[in-house]
């Protein structure tokens, strides 16, 4: 069985490939220098559940963060962040509240709605107010098996705070998203060109209806218009995926060649139903059957490779990857060993309970380190896919260098909301690598990250009391 996208498939025998970058006028970066100006602004979040206790993040690369070592020169890590604002929202268990604050910054509006957009959607809207310049406005992929409120698995929050799509679980479905699919025919079958014109006429009429509905003469209120605008953005996807044109969906450059059909690694419940049942603290309810931990990492790696393909071929510039869901009750099989932290036998540790309860609720720090070392192996596979030196961009940098990658989690010290770990990779050279222990709120970090892109985030304006002084992490700015 083929389980990955081989470089051979992608390169078709080519050597290192310089991928063409989008036109300058579509780029969102300030023209600080020629090299930076050649790279489009991209932002991808990578999230994982349950957190890394601050004392373990402070071991730097000699603890659970060890798998990130190959990227140390491109990585800024934070161990002292605070997400206490998650408690501002009234009811419910904390995991769905922190899930809403992660990459958004402010306490959620309600059980199903965040206070505003996640970072990548914020950058998308701020830099491209007329709509994304790419075929897919954004992309969300990852592995999740939890129940309950969407914040446990959704990473994409729209501009109005409504949840975006659940991450695509099956690598094969992600593949279809990138490489397109066919449209059922309606009525008699005209020739290809005529059919395209017919479809175009239909879609143009539809688009005009949406433009009117969100326009100044519409009778709809602001909230409804925001909802329709998101739908309008999605019609671009329809346009480019379903209307047959002579233009291929993927750029015809070597690095963007369609790999041969891929297969989903066996053993994961990709199609598991996710009933919306409340998850109570202390109640063991496994969210899936035990999963082979190697198959899990393999599936995530495959997703990350497809995601990297989408970035370097400019199918999208914004998105999110989910390594493990937030507050999930996962169970794994097999034994995992991290050089710096030792081994964890998942068969034993999750025989009768989940990782969540067995390790985190009981605060078994050595085992937590081993488990999150496993998670970081997943994160590292994504960074490796982005940082693949076989695919340098026109400015001589890798996709990782030319992408702001924000890595974050929901919990920190003592399974609480202080000492929360985040990291930043790539970022167009705007940030200084290193380990930062400074106490700050996640809002401060998010604001600081967006500033070099000319974005005043507005995050935290309603909740300024959560900020720390001096409200910016200037030490990380290059």
């Amino acid at each position: 069985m083929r389980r990955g996208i081989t470089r051979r498939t992608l390169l078709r025998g080519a050597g290192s490939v310089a991928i063409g970058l989008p036109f300058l006028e579509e780029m969102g970066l300030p023209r600080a220098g020629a090299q930076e100006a050649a790279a489009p602004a991209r932002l991808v979040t990578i999230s994982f559940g349950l957190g890394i206790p601050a004392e373990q993040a402070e071991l730097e690369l000699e603890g659970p963060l060890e798998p990130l070592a190959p990227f140390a020169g491109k990585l800024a890590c934070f161990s002292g962040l605070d997400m206490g604002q998650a408690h501002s929202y009234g009811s419910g268990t904390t995991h769905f509240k922190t899930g809403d604050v992660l990459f958004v910054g402010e306490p959620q509006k309600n059980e199903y709605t965040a206070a505003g957009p996640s970072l990548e959607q914020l950058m998308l809207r701020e830099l491209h107010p007329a709509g994304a310049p790419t075929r897919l406005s954004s992309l969300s992929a990852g592995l999740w098996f939890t129940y309950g409120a969407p914040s446990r698995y959704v990473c994409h929050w729209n501009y109005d705070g409504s949840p975006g799509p659940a991450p695509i679980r099956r690598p094969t479905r992600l593949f279809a998203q990138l490489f397109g699919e066919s449209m059922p025919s309606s009525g008699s079958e005209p020739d290809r060109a005529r059919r395209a014109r017919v479809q175009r006429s239909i879609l143009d009429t539809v688009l005009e209806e949406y433009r009117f509905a969100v326009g100044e003469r519409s009778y709809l209120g602001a909230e409804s218009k925001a909802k329709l605008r998101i739908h309008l953005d999605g019609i671009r996807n329809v346009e480019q995926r379903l209307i047959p044109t002579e233009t291929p969906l993927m750029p015809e450059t070597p690095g963007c060649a369609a790999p041969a059909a891929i297969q989903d690694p066996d053993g994961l419940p990709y199609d598991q139903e996710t009933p919306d049942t409340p998850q109570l603290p202390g109640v063991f309810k496994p969210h899936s059957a035990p999963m082979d931990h190697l198959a899990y990492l393999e599936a995530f790696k495959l997703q990350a490779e497809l995601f990297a393909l989408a970035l370097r071929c400019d199918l999208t510039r914004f998105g999110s990857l989910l390594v493990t869901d937030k507050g999930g009750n996962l169970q794994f099989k097999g034994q995992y060993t991290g050089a710096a932290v030792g081994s964890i036998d998942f068969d034993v540790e999750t025989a009768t309970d989940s990782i969540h309860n067995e390790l985190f609720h009981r605060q078994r720090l050595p085992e937590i380190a081993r488990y999150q070392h496993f998670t970081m192996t997943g994160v590292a596979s994504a960074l490796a896919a982005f940082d693949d030196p076989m695919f340098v961009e026109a400015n001589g940098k890798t996709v990782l260098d030319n992408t702001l990658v924000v890595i974050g989690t929901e919990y920190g010290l003592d399974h609480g909301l202080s000492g929360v770990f985040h990291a930043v990779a790539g970022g167009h050279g705007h940030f200084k690598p290193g380990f930062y222990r400074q106490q700050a709120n996640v809002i401060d970090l998010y604001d600081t990250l967006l500033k070099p892109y000319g974005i005043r985030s507005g995050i935290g304006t309603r909740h300024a009391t959560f900020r720390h002084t001096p409200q910016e992490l200037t030490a990380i700015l290059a």
Partner: protein
Amino acid sequence: MAQRLCALGLQASVLYGCADEGAGPAAEAEAPGRGLPVRSSLAGRLTPAQHRNIASDVLGVELSASDLAVAGGGIPQEQPSTGLFRNGADGQAAADDYPLAFARLAAQIATRVDISGLLAGVAGCADAVSPCEQAFVADLGKRLFRRPLSARESEAFTALHGALRAEGLSFADACRGVLEAMLQAPAFVFRLERELSGDPARARYLDGFELASRLSFFLWDSAPDRELLELAEVQALDGSPAALPALRRQVARLLADPRARRMTRELVRDFAGTERAAFVGVTPALRSALLDSMVATVDAHLWEEGAPIRELFTTRKLSFDRSTAELLDLTPMAEGQHLYDVSPLPERVGWLSHPGFIAGMGDAQVGKLVHRGITLMTKLMCRQPIQLPDGLEATTADFNTMYADLTERQRSEERQKRGDCWACHAQFEPLAYGFDRFDAAGRYLGALDAQGRALPIDGWITDDLSLEEAARPRYADMAELMALLADSETIQSCMAEHFLAFATGRASSEIEKAFASPVRVALERAGGDLPAMVQAVVTSELFRALAPAGPAPEGQP
């Protein structure tokens, strides 16, 4: 067609078309607001079920479950939004995939529709070759958009027909193309109301088309039929008090139609949560059978017997099919749903003792009482649990470890001894004691558990938190619990609140809570059955009026 409407001077054309794309309806002449404040409107995307129903009712196209399944490119199933029901406009997910799914389905429906039949139903289109595209656009548009097209819309879709004809498509295929576009247009995909019409400082009654739409989506989960639209068009129906008699007549007509069964199915599905059953051994087929049996139980009670809603809590007639009867070790009957008289089974009292409801409460093992108590409080009393204190998860894990050998009830009694736990748990846990002899599938365990320990089911209800705990109404068994629930004003108000939220397609809020009590009173006065509830809900101002979300667009009324 729009021009024709304008020439006729009909209210519809004033509302939606003609020169200025809108003007105030007659319903605005008198404003609501002497009573409780009403809500502003919010665009709600059609659910898969609504999509399927409209395709069937308006276009005669039957969409199967696989047509609508995501795997086949269908519309993603809505999760319940901020409220209990999936038809709520609040908090709907929005993503790239949705327009794509609507586009795929639109193409599929346009391919399968009997276009000749559709054209034959349009005045002036006796056959599929007559040049009647304007009439076709106007007629189809009104059915799909649930109101007449504006002049702009009429022109746009007629122009589309012309463009497709110019590409060489036949008249009928060009009509299919128009249909495909309409099925993706915002006026079809979203339930829209004129949110910015009228004086922004005061609420207004719905116009006839808005009301017709609310009514049909509430009772049929579908678009209005021709009769509703015609009444709206001649101003015989709107949200104003003057139109209440006509509204009541239409409610009676819609309730008499078999499509009204969709309302109870949707309500019961989301209320019971049966599709979320996760007990060991459950299969999709069994989940589906449990839901069907639960719905059949409610249908038999409300539709066939016409019994009061509150008596759902005490009914001794529960429906089961073969698989659900076997689950409970009852004697299976022939295929299909059958009403069982469960009077000989003291544990089976009322619809909440149906395994479809119990299984829908989830499959918690440790913490079952807590889980069930919160579920019951949320669904029966419309109260949400308070914020959990910091560090609770670790405390709970320790507690459960410490008392791992105790029964659920014994653990609950330990919590009663801890003031910090019981301050919150007292609000809901005692409600669940009565269910302690049911397993996660709703099977009866008996008076003792597998280890021979007693499973007491006495407790008290917590509907009135102003009472001291010792003064709260107590029950000794399931029959007494259900009798208390049936008589509780809090619970009857909560049922009214659910109906109000479902009827308006919004998550429940303080506004729905405020209307719930008067609706309950009206319901009781009218006999307490389903038609009485529906009449009480639709005649409330919450259903008939909206608060403008802001000033009208410049130059518009």
